[in-house]
């Protein structure tokens, strides 16, 4: 039932007026996010991720289609949605620089109607959790980028939202700050069943590390949707193994391995040939119809006088999935992508 879902979207489109031609930021999105999910929208700049978040957070009305958040319609039930959501964006500079960290959070707590004492208590609690105790009396304008984003994250939790929207939350953060933030999101979600996060990101690792399910988005369309594992499997039907041996097998070498039942191919692992693995070893890339063929490969290697040194299954990355689906990498912008990221 759509009302039981954290997010439900059907045929959502968004067209921006622009000259010379209108820009289609979303071209008909269908999406269901279950309560308690950590859901990711993965796509390059201009894919339409932020536009979708703006619609779901009631900042934009879809040109067509319907969307519901926590069972409430984004067009007609905005007041109810705003009581149960919050949003944190990367690079956010909200609030007032002359306030200190505590005051800033308290001010936002008032916008959500927290009673005065409860507001201060929640503020202090969140300051401690995100690790801003030392900066609690520091003016907001003097915070570093990482500290600022911790503050923004704490702000996003003030009203104890049921659905938290994170729009590129680690944008511009250093490795440690980004890791801290990711850990906080996981901990917050784990603290209560039913808390849902919708993350937009163009960092593959972030999506893979955090999200239960991911939708790969490009040019306003969802191209693929599933768990990270499902998405990877989607572009790689066969199993690929990297096998390191002390030397090439005798009696036919690679050709012999390739002719085994269930083996699709057996080639040197690197472009530079088997030597790339090191002077005392060779690396092979063996494609199998399924994992069960691996046993015969290992047996054949041993029978041909080689010793197995290493064995690893090669997994395609989400970037491989994206390239497979879109035909280009993340860094290569597509046409008409400008307004969609706004």
């Amino acid at each position, binding site marked *: 039932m759509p009302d039981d879902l*954290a997010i439900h979207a059907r045929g959502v489109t968004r067209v921006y007026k622009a000259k010379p031609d209108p820009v289609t930021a979303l071209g008909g999105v269908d999406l269901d996010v279950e309560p308690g999910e950590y859901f990711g929208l993965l796509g390059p700049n201009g894919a339409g991720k932020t536009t979708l978040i703006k619609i779901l957070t009631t900042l*934009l009305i879809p040109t067509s289609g319907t969307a519901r958040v926590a069972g409430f319609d984004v067009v007609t039930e905005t*007041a109810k949605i705003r009581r149960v959501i919050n949003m944190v964006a990367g690079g956010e500079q909200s609030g007032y620089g002359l306030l200190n960290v505590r005051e800033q959070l*308290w001010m936002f707590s008032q916008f959500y*109607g927290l009673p005065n004492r409860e507001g201060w208590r929640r503020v202090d609690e969140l300051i401690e959790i995100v690790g801003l105790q030392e900066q609690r009396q520091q003016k907001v304008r003097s915070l570093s980028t990482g500290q600022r984003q911790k503050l923004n994250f704490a702000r996003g939790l003030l009203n104890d939202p049921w659905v938290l929207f994170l729009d590129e939350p680690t944008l511009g953060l250093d490795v440690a700050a980004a890791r801290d933030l990711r850990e906080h999101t996981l901990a*917050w979600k784990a603290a209560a069943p039913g808390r849902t996060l919708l993350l937009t990101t163009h960092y593959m690792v972030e999506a893979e590390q955090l999200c239960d399910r991911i939708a790969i988005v490009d040019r306003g369309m969802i191209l693929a949707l599933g768990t990270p594992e499902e998405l990877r499997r989607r572009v790689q039907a066969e199993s690929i193994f990297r096998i390191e041996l002390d030397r090439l097998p005798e009696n036919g070498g690679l050709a012999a391995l390739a002719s085994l039942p269930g083996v699709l191919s057996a080639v040197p692992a690197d472009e530079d040939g088997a030597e790339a693995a090191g002077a005392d070893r060779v690396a092979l890339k063996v494609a199998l119809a399924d994992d069960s063929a691996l046993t015969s490969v290992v047996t054949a290697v041993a029978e041909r006088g080689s010793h197995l040194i290493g064995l690893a299954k090669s997994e395609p990355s989400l970037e491989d999935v994206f390239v497979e689906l879109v035909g280009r990498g993340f860094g290569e912008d597509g046409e008409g992508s400008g307004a969609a990221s706004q």
Partner: protein
Amino acid sequence: MSGFRAATARNPREAADWSTGRIIRTNLRAIMGRAYPRIIGLTREPSWVFFEILLPFLAVSAFVFVYRALGAAEEFVGFVVLGGAMTAFWLNVVWMMAAQFYWEKDQGNLELYFTAPMHLMSILAGMAIGGLVLTSSRALAVIVIGSVLYGVSYQIEQPLLLAAVFLLTMVPLYGMGMLFASLFLLWGREAFHLAQLLQEPIYFLGGVNFPIRHLGVVSGLVVATLPLAVGLDAMRQLVFPGAASQGVLPVGTEMTILAVMGVVFLIGARLALGWLETLARREGRLTLRWQ
């Protein structure tokens, strides 16, 4: 232990089910929350004393010298000082209310205001109250400095009535600011230019530096549309002996006009905010940074 607490409601439906009392309390708290940075800014950034009091007083002084050079009645000096004090409120309305959404959007606050569960009127009311504290300080300073420096004397026989006129002036004045603020949602940056456009004409038509009675037939139109002009005209009549002859209408009538204006502007602002919010959401004006 992450330290994060479990949810306070059992499910989102329960969390979204607010009583009328809770909605009202949330909006009152939002007013307080938004007023806070304005008020606290008084102590954190003392430069406002120079920019908000000393510099504007130069303009007041210029008119005082002109009237004295022309040999005008001394009450005109008082008119100018009181006008200078009230100018602060008009400037506050134009720059800190009407154009506020422009600044808020620029800072990234506007989206957060919209996604929070309070009415935008509460944010604007918070700005108004916070601004009133600052602006009242400036107005008071202008009046005190004016009386010390230029010997202006005030004869207030009905202080409660004067306070009532002042309050009645503030309601439509800030209601007008809220109405202008809503225009920002329609015109984006163009509304900022509107504020610039309005500043000087209202100085003139508002009778800041002279009694609007001298505008002749135009004064009637001004009294019917500009709360600053009506309020100032009524206050001058209550503060300076003999100023009644310079007033456009009796104080009682002007108070009635102010009361009607207050209702019209506040209701108009509320309706406009609701309508224009929907329009802005439809056209993407809340989120597109270049607009």
